[in-house]
């Protein structure tokens, strides 16, 4: 079967959905990833992405056991992700001296809670699909939610571009210009947490952080400003995602991992060229 003919074959909608998901994810990888990179919070974003598994596990448990009737797991996961982001933001802003230890503890506790709740969920779901992604799980509902999140991220980053840029470049100066940099930080972590929930079906929790940093890290090598970095890393994300999907189809390998491998190899090549 040819990848490109299957893309338009209505009897295999998951390929088309994967294609649309990679387009919609690329906006988040490019725009949000650039902000995460210049703000140097990849470590925090990594902690959030892993701790979010706790929320996903609890939401699945509550939903499948009908403890809260008609409770969509995705909504539960988003609510818990927001709570996780707020806790991590609070720790980062208030507990500067012990930040590393506390954030790492939250990372591990979040993941462990997720594994325990998923194990206790009657229709046992393999946690591997959350950790490494499962392209078959991409539903129309996930695509709509991804599109809404794209619009929110695009609106916030265009409307508040200068404020985001200033708070990342020189936070102290931004504060003297009346910008609430803590608010930007908290919103950024919340958006990152929600993105992780929506992106995990595509590349998985473990690899979301790679996709938030590798395309933006590659475009940082040639971008003159943050907006250029956002546009070029979105374009790179589309390229990496399509190439990864194509290779996974051709070689019958996991798609999320292939997307990350393609992105990582290109990033390392750029790093080598720049080091010379």
């Amino acid at each position: 079967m040819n990848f490109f003919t299957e893309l338009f074959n209505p009897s295999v909608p998951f390929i088309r959905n994967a294609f649309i998901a990679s387009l919609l994810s690329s906006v988040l990888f490019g725009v949000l990833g650039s902000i995460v990179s210049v703000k140097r919070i990849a470590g925090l974003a990594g902690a959030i992405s892993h701790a979010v598994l706790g929320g996903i596990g609890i939401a699945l448990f509550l939903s499948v056991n009908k403890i809260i009737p008609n409770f969509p797991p995705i909504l539960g996961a988003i609510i818990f992700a927001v709570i996780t982001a707020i806790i991590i933001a609070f720790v980062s802003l208030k507990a500067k001296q012990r930040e590393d230890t506390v954030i790492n503890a939250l990372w591990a506790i979040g993941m462990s809670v997720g594994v325990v709740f998923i194990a206790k969920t009657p229709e046992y779901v393999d946690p591997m699909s959350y950790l490494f992604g499962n392209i078959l799980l991409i539903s129309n509902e996930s695509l709509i939610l991804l599109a809404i999140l794209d619009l929110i991220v695009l609106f916030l980053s265009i409307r508040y571009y200068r404020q985001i840029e200033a708070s990342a470049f020189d936070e102290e100066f931004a504060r003297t210009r009346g910008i609430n940099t803590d608010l930007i930080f908290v919103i950024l972590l919340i958006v990152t947490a929600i993105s992780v929930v929506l992106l995990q079906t595509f590349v998985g929790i473990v690899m979301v952080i790679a996709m938030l940093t590798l395309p933006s890290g590659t475009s940082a090598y040639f971008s003159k400003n943050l907006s250029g970095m956002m546009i070029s890393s979105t374009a790179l994300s589309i390229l990496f995602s399509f190439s990864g999907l194509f290779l996974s189809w051709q070689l019958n390998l996991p798609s999320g991992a292939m997307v990350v491998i393609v992105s990582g190899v290109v990033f390392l090549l750029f790093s080598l060229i720049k080091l010379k």
Partner: protein
Amino acid sequence: MIRIKEHKVAIQFNDVYFSYGDIEVLRDVSFHIHEGEFVTLVGANGAGKTTVLKLILGLVDPQRGKIEVFGKSPQYASINVGYIPQNINLDSNFPITVEEVVKMGLLNGFYREKPMKSLEDVERALEIADIKDLRKRSYTALSGGQRRRVLVARALVSNPRMLVLDEPTANMDVESERKLFSVLGDLKRKTTILIVTHDTGFVSALTDVVLCIGKSFEKMHNVIRHALEPVKDKPSDLYSGRVARVLHNTELPDNLNCCLR
């Protein structure tokens, strides 16, 4: 030295106390400066100069006492202050052009900027700081002196009522230092200028008021006003050759009778 009398108060500290945990930095500090004055705050490293600046800019709050900048609390007044930080080596990988750094000085909270007005202001600031030819260059590709001038333009772009410079001559070549003090000389009287420096012996001859802070002086953790005398025998590469000596054995009173309230 020219004394400015019957001027409005720009900054006023009243019995200000500040500590970082158990480490006391400022104890019962009271001083004031007037609008239009050129003030130099001197003190050894670790004396508390940067803390005084952070208090003036509203970046930290005092544990006791009261601070007013242009009659308002520092958080509300900072929008009228142009701040040039000591650290010019901001993120070395940040993709940003000189023009974008300068535009940052026009930000006012989460409000939108006015494009036409900002264009004129940016042009003027680039002109004053003599960096028009650098506008499209990447900030991280500039030398230390050029970066400092970009940050001067960023501070001037909003037409601030006060300019605050933290160790402005650090990492600066002689030519850039000359250009900076020439800009400051032009701004004198029109804008209140506060310079912070660790050189406790000599200050720029543009200085109207010198304030000393810290442990190396008689009063611990306090800010004292000293007298100055012109110096002619200093090398010309310091403050572009226009230098004044700080007379540490004098203490001028912090008398508010001279001020319009």
